[in-house]
């Protein structure tokens, strides 16, 4: 049974069956059969990352549910609980409430951009991305592309729920699309803030908590639910200057067909300012991570 050899016992011969393991000959063929293409250009690298974001939505559609279920509950609860008290009828209140809830649900979704980025960093895959000869900001821009799709979907869910409950926007389909577009642009600006947070904080749940800690007061202390005039003076002053209130006012205006250009400009300016500050910061942090 036992054998004595003068060298160290050899390991079992590497046996690999073609069906369950790697086939050595095929591996060799695969290695030799590819010529190195020119490096991917910045746009196609970013688009490839965008595709990755889309695939994640496709594989885990429930994640959309996570962020839309609360706003959907809010629409239903607030409409029927407070509609009569606040606006005299549930239908009137829904017209007032829905654009605000749209803003809220899309902004909740932006937190997940930071969470997803943080989750990525805890995995080895980011190391591989960073060792590729690609344009450095491509992974971030690409995931933003995927995230924008997520924002549009989250917004669409809310609008559809509203329509079912009897929401009838005065400016029709065009107005609703314009409002959704404005909200998504603002959300892209916000998502850079959470991306920065995602790179600074230690765990995905820390990003989630910090995100909601910021977003909750900002959305509740706005004109999403009630007219600011009904609030105490100090609070009213805050609510009036809260960019989220201005975004909600602009969305309502777009949906009803009486938007103020000034509101829209402020929203776009805030989104641009957030991007200008946080996008370079995020890129720098990502590179150094």
């Amino acid at each position, binding site marked *: 049974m036992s054998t004595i050899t003068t060298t160290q016992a050899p390991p079992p011969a*590497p046996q690999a069956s073609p069906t369950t393991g790697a086939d050595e000959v095929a591996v*060799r063929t695969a290695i030799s059969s590819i010529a190195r293409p020119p490096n991917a250009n910045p746009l196609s690298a970013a688009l490839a990352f965008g595709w990755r974001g889309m695939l994640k939505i496709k594989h885990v559609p429930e994640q959309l549910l996570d962020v839309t279920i609360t706003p959907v509950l809010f629409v239903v609860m607030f409409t029927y609980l407070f509609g009569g008290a606040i606006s005299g009828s549930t239908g009137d209140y829904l017209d007032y409430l829905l654009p605000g809830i749209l803003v809220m649900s899309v902004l909740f979704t932006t937190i997940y951009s930071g969470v997803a980025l943080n989750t990525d960093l805890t995995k080895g895959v980011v190391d591989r991305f960073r060792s590729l000869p690609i344009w450095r900001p491509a992974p971030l821009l690409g995931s933003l592309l995927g995230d924008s799709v997520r924002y549009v979907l989250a917004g669409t869910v809310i609008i559809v729920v509203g329509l079912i409950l009897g929401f009838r926007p005065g400016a029709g389909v065009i107005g609703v699309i314009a409002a959704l577009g404005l909200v998504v642009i603002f959300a892209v600006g916000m998502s850079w803030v959470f991306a920065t947070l995602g790179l600074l904080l230690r765990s995905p749940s820390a990003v989630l908590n910090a995100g909601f800690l910021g977003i909750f007061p900002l959305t509740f202390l706005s004109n999403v639910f009630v007219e600011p005039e009904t609030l105490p003076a100090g609070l009213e002053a805050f609510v009036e200057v809260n960019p989220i209130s201005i975004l909600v006012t602009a969305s309502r205006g777009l949906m009803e067909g009486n938007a103020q250009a000034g509101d829209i400009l402020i929203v776009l300016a805030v989104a641009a300012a957030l991007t200008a500050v946080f996008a370079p910061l995020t890129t720098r942090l990502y590179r150094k991570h």
Partner: protein
Amino acid sequence: MTLQPPLAIEATGLVKSFGKTRAVDGVDLTVRRGSVYGVLGPNGAGKTTTIRMLATLIGPDAGSGRVFGHDIVEDANAVRGIVSLTGQLASVDEELTGRENLILLGRLLGLKRPEAKERAGELLEAFGLVEAAGRLVKHYSGGMRRRLDIAASIVVTPQLMFLDEPTTGLDPRSRNQVWSIVRALVAEGTTILLCTQYLEEADQLADRIAVIDRGKVIAEGTPAELKASVGSGSLHVRLLDPEQRLDAARVLDRELGAVTLDADPAALSAAGADADRAAEAVAELTRSDVRIADFSLGQPSLDEVFLALTGHLADASAEHADPIEVEQAA
């Protein structure tokens, strides 16, 4: 000068600190094109940090490195164009399918979409992953994940491949598959820098080995040179039943001393054995009802090399340190 084949890696005095810890403390490496170079050391020795510097993921605090002549700091993007990295954590996206991972990398490396799809199909076939191609990677076994990881590294064949502990946590069968893939890569001319804490793995695959401990290279040479520098031979025993390994270790410890447990859960070695004493020890094992699959008397294993070089055992700092290995030979 120009007739000399260029070196795949040429690193001098690499240093990297994290806070007060000098993770890498002056590492020099010279790796010839087309070879497998093993970097051997326990957890926390600085292997991964060295790889991360050479793969341009982090910049060195001091020292310099060239990969196929390109400076790792000044010319990082050129380095990225010719290397690929298989990290210690699987460097694939767990939330995508195997096929999607390969297509994504193909596109990021500059393949057109149809080319990327075709390449993914070819690799899935070669790596035995066709059936699992449509499943999310998070549902893959460790061995499948590793194979996908390596496939992802050769979507476009790199000139230099970093393999960071490619078989850690794999069962022996999957480990053998990974080894055969590595051999195929080498046969096709890819240079490989292999980090491992398995001494057997470096011995099996590497042409040259640098032994690294606490951020420094403490020995360098061919596996045979390293073994020769240590001296006396060893008895290697493989058991039929891994459960009996501790019993066997007690017997060999009594008969020969300096027992080490090998990576293979059924194998163990004892240093300082000449033929007579080894025969006696094997007879004693049989008398103690330890069932032996095979045994051999050979050169010292790299475990023993490590012990002789550092005065402590290779995996004394690793999480699976075993009490029996507290035995010191030197």
